[in-house]
């Protein structure tokens, strides 16, 4: 009798428990559904399509006439001089921008991580180009880089340097874009470094100065090692951003002169939307995606190993 009563009680308990669980499952699914559906339609599906289209040939405006061509796009890709040139330009930009920009950012962070009265003014000065949109920056710098009447050439005159062609020269165009990009984005990385710097305990500095360490030694032996994780993070996001270089060359040079600023992202855009080779552009997109994944994973591994 007692037994039965207890069982009944237990059963009731279990059933309310499982009912509650079922309810939580239902609520959970309904809460994630909007986001998940949107992501499936506008992120996962396009991504899978990009992979699939890489094996086909079709005009962007006639997606009903798709031909399966196997690995043809990839074969073409690896014999295409423009692809190699764009890949090279992308890597060149990345390899220069990442250390330079991170270095400048770290320096700025060290400059404003103190008790100066005006530090907030300086921080905002370094940060203001970050908030300004890249379109604005690019158009502004076309004017600054103007070979005849630009502000930069006027400033160079002051130092006795003659007019430079900047964006009009195939040897200077990419470097000009690099300079501008560092100027635009260093403030962003500065903020991350600054957060890292402020996370270092003040006691370590005090202890080391009692031991007779000077400012440079403190920088070398305390600050830099403590920033290891933050640095890897900054390098990772800067690299991923750099590989995507598009708006600057699109607006400022359209890939020229002599393809010196054509990047992978620009090539995808031009092949896809200007020449309408949707299949070929997809193949480049896949390679582009693999490069980004490779970077992210190698950086993550680097972070974990230490």
């Amino acid at each position, binding site marked *: 009798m007692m037994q039965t009563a207890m069982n009944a009680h237990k059963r009731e308990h279990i059933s309310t428990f499982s009912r509650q669980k079922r309810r*939580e499952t239902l609520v959970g699914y309904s*809460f994630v559904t909007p986001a998940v559906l949107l*992501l499936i339609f*506008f992120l996962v599906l396009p*991504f899978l399509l990009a992979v699939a289209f890489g094996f086909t040939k079709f005009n*962007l405006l006639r997606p009903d006439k798709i031909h399966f061509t196997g690995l043809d796009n990839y074969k073409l890709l690896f014999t295409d001089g423009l692809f190699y040139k764009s890949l090279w330009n992308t890597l060149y930009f990345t390899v220069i921008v990442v250390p330079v920009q991170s270095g400048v950012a770290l320096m700025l962070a060290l400059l404003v991580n103190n008790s100066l009265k005006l530090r907030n003014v300086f921080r905002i000065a370094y940060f203001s*180009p970050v908030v300004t949109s890249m379109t604005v920056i690019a158009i502004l710098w076309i004017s600054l880089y103007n070979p005849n009447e*630009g502000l930069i050439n006027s400033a160079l005159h002051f130092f006795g340097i003659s007019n430079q062609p900047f964006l009009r020269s195939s040897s200077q165009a990419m470097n000009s874009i690099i300079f501008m990009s560092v100027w635009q984005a260093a403030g962003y990385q500065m903020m991350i470094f600054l957060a890292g710097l402020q996370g270092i305990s003040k006691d370590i500095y005090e202890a080391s100065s009692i031991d007779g360490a000077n400012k440079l030694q403190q920088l070398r032996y305390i600050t830099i090692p403590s920033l290891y994780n*933050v640095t890897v993070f900054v390098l990772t996001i800067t690299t991923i951003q750099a590989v995507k270089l598009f708006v600057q060359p699109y607006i400022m040079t359209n890939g020229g002169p002599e393809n010196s600023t054509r990047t992978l992202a620009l090539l995808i855009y031009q092949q896809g939307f200007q020449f309408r080779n949707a299949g070929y552009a997809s193949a480049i997109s896949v390679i582009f995606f693999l490069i980004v994944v490779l970077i992210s994973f190698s950086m993550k591994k680097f972070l974990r190993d230490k």
Partner: protein
Amino acid sequence: MRDTRTKLLLYILNLIMSLLFIIPLLWMVVSSLKPENQIFSDLSSLKSLLPLNLTLDNYRSAFERIPMIKYLFNSIFYVSVICISGLGVNSICGYALAKLRFRGNEFILVCIIALMIVPFESILMPLYLVVNALHWVNTWFALIVPFIANCFSIFMFRQFFMDIPNEILESASIDGSGPLKTFASIVVPLSGPVFATAFILDFISHWGDFMWPILVTTGESLRNIQLGIQTFFTLPPIYYGQIMATLTFTTVPIIVLFLLLQKYYVQGITSAGIKG
């Protein structure tokens, strides 16, 4: 003594560097307020950065040539709709992933983190075909709907909601509050900062949208402000004063928003950095 010298050195270095960072923007604003011919005659001297002979002519004539105000409203409209609907969709998804136990919970979270890696550039074309197949080209839907769900926002909300004590949620549910009501009346009011952060991060990134709007807007009616200034730049005759006026005009709203929500924007950047 040594301290004052370090301080002085820091001031000088900061001053030089901040001038380097601010001069291009200062030149933009000052030039937008000058008569066209004076921009060039001042160029070789310090006068190029000093507001002399102020005039609003550049603004007036630029606005006569292209509908800047309309572009501005287009931008504000579609970016706000993305951000506000994003707050709803992403926060509730983040909440479910943080606080509700259901099958597939972990799997969805892992997928969302993995999807953060997919660069927009590599899905650009198929996304265009999807939008085209939906007959959304040249409609607001094309500019808004694909960007409402945002993996980074979902993840950020989830991290924030994880820290809310379960006891608060349980006591609400014992009091008979349904899950949606618990979320709206308990969780949301506790989470102002994370909503502000998600909003401003999203807003600033979409304010700069350029590549996608070129593709999906064919006419002038839906054009955003970034496209507006780009077409203006390529539209002869080219007057630098007018160009600088449109650039300044485009930058002002975002600077105002940034100054208002500065704390949250910086918080968003740095918390991403520390979690790294």
